[in-house]
């Protein structure tokens, strides 16, 4: 019973904290550019404002267009129940890594459909670029998670992985873990449309990938899509922190373990957020046709992780 309560609490926390970390990311980027930047609570205000506004919907769109934000938000809700945050208990214990990857794919597919539904050229362009990247992201994401599962004895159950990694002690720090983690981090940037894959701050409609697909959304639909993409970043960061570097996570439901788990995950997610801010300040956006090279590098890393698992 206590596991269920803990996992629901952590799912709610992930949703509630997602805009905060988005705000911290923007603030950190602004400070690196010598700007004051908006408050770290600004994403909450933005989402709240959008939720109150009425929608302006393209005449060429069908019922699907209105339906998609709910599917996207729903899939992120489901994933937040499946992802460990401060404790290794997850409310949907039957979900495994493979189903997670394909819920992300569902989200992306729906977003591309939404971009096409709007009937503007930018939605179509963003969608085609997203699909090009998606084809390359999927194998490296799957393979890096498989390497992780291989490392912990073959289970792809999400709740088991942190437990087993910690149980293995220091021997877990193998090349396989580091390689898989690096590969996962690159896919994290690609999945979440960050620099160098996409520029989330751009005003240039011709270069947009993620924003291009959202360009026809407004009001509540846009609010939900924005919130979903913040949750996606949060879920990816938590996955990175709890699956690859789980130390500190609460394995029991005792208050002290939960407190340590909470403190450690917040610090880890904050570090990931700052790392993204640093990368976004340091790198230029890559040329579109250069992105497959980067994603191939990510795939190669996860493949190496897989190989090193068996030969080392």
């Amino acid at each position: 019973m206590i596991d269920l309560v803990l996992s629901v609490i952590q799912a709610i926390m992930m949703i509630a904290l997602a805009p905060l970390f988005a705000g911290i990311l923007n603030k950190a980027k602004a400070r690196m550019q010598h700007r004051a930047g908006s408050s770290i609570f600004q994403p909450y205000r933005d989402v709240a404002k959008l939720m109150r506004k009425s929608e302006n919907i393209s005449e060429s769109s069908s019922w699907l267009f209105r339906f998609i934000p709910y599917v996207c938000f729903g899939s992120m809700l489901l994933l937040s129940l499946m992802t460990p945050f401060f404790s290794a208990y997850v409310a949907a214990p039957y979900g495994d890594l493979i189903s997670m990857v394909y819920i992300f794919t569902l989200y992306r597919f729906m977003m591309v459909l939404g971009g096409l539904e709007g009937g503007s050229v930018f939605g179509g362009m963003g969608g085609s670029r997203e699909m090009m990247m998606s084809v390359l992201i999927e194998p490296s994401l799957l393979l890096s998670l498989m390497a992780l599962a291989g490392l912990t004895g073959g289970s792809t159950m999400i709740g088991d992985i942190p437990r087993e990694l910690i149980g293995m002690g220091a021997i877990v720090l193998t090349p396989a873990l580091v390689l898989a983690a690096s590969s996962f981090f690159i896919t994290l940037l690609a999945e979440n449309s960050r620099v160098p894959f996409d520029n989330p701050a751009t005003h240039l409609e011709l270069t947009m990938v993620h924003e291009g697909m959202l360009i026809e959304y407004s009001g509540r639909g846009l609010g939900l899509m924005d919130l979903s993409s913040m949750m996606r970043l949060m879920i990816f960061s938590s996955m990175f922190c709890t699956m690859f570097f789980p130390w500190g996570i609460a394995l029991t439901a005792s208050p002290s373990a939960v407190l340590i788990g909470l403190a450690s995950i917040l610090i880890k997610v904050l570090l990931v957020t700052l790392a993204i801010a640093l990368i976004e300040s340091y790198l230029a956006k890559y040329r579109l046709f250069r992105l497959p090279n980067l994603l191939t590098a990510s795939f190669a890393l996860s493949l190496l992780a897989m190989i090193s698992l068996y030969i080392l």
Partner: protein
Amino acid sequence: MMYGTDELPDIIRDYSKRGFGLVCMYARDVPDGHVLEVVMAGDGVERITARVDGTMYRSLTSEIPGASLYEREIYETSGIYPAGHPDMRPLRSRSTWGSLSGGDAIPHNDIFGDGIFEIPVGPIHAGVIGPGHFRFSVAGEPILMMKAYLGYSRRGVEKLMETPVSYDNAPIAERISGDNAVAHTLAHLQTVEQDTEIPERARFIRTMLAELERIYNHLGTMAGIALDTALAVPAAHGNMLRESILRLNEKICGHRQLWGILRAGGLSKDVSETVLAEIERELMRIKFDTEDLAGVMTRSPSFMDRAETTGRLSYEDAVRLRAVGPVARASGVNADVRKMRPYAAYDKVAFDVPICPSGDVYARMTVRKREIIESISVIIQCINEMKDGPICTDVKTKDGFYAGITESPRGETVHCAHIEGGRITRYKIRDASFPNWPALECAVIGNIVPDFPVVNKSFDLSYSGNDL
């Protein structure tokens, strides 16, 4: 001397052999019809006048490609049709002259085939930029053809200039393209001041103002290129440098873009020694910071990958389309009005004209960066050479044809005035952006759609200057 329109190609070719180039072409009403005025500039400025029989003449474009835009403009504004012109698309699709240009209907690109799509973009854009409609024909991401349709910010400036010469038209000239105010106003004043001897101090200060304008424009463009490649920190750095120049400008004349200080005969306000000393101090800092900024961008492999070979404008295309300014110089064309026909005090200062041969985004950025360094040196020379003295003199404007040509941050800026009986009867403005827009159409071919914004930014073209 009046020629026939059929003689024009030969005459223009003769001038070209003597190093003259076409800088402007327009139609003018005369009591019994129209004449074409062709302005050629080389060591000096020459005007060729040709009578048009009726409302049609044989197009010059097939022999002189640089005339294409002007012929389209003449058709839209005067209804004189250039027979045999290969490309009569509307030039300013929403021109105030309405139906002549075919109203609002923008034609599809003339390119067809399997998998070729047309992407219409604008005139309203996601960012705060000028209004322009672009039609891209793409096969996947690579651009096969791009056509720009402008004219959304047309105000009829040329007509507004047709006033008695005693009127102060400098405020209008400043508003042609707000960030090139000094260059436009200086070109306008040349048509009014004619051979009036301007006091030396005023000439030095005018040179200084023109160079300050160049510096802040170029810094803005460098920041824009960085921003469009998502290089956020150098972009913020560039905008900070630009801001420090704008603040200097405000100290000089109370306006951040240097409006209101230039007037016929000299200046409306002197610049004090303390301000001059501050300019000198600030510029030394900006010089090092600009080198830093360029260094940070050049050392970033991800930026260089975006900038090199992107949006290449070949030397041949730059010459054929008569591109001007930093865009032409980045394609290896050695052309600068300040060297060829010095105005203000450019004959008294030493400076280099940077040239880059490669014609890509990186070349245009490098030319701009080196021009900033040269401009700083010019300003320091002006401040050192400047002596106390009057800053304004009386102006006597004579009748006749006068052309004023200056080098704005975007390139050669031309103003032509026909003055009869103390009144301007025809005024023609050609902003540097006007001939550079077709060069942009040419440079983006073969690039991918997401690279267009950075190519566009590296050209740094003005919408309002083009639309007039």
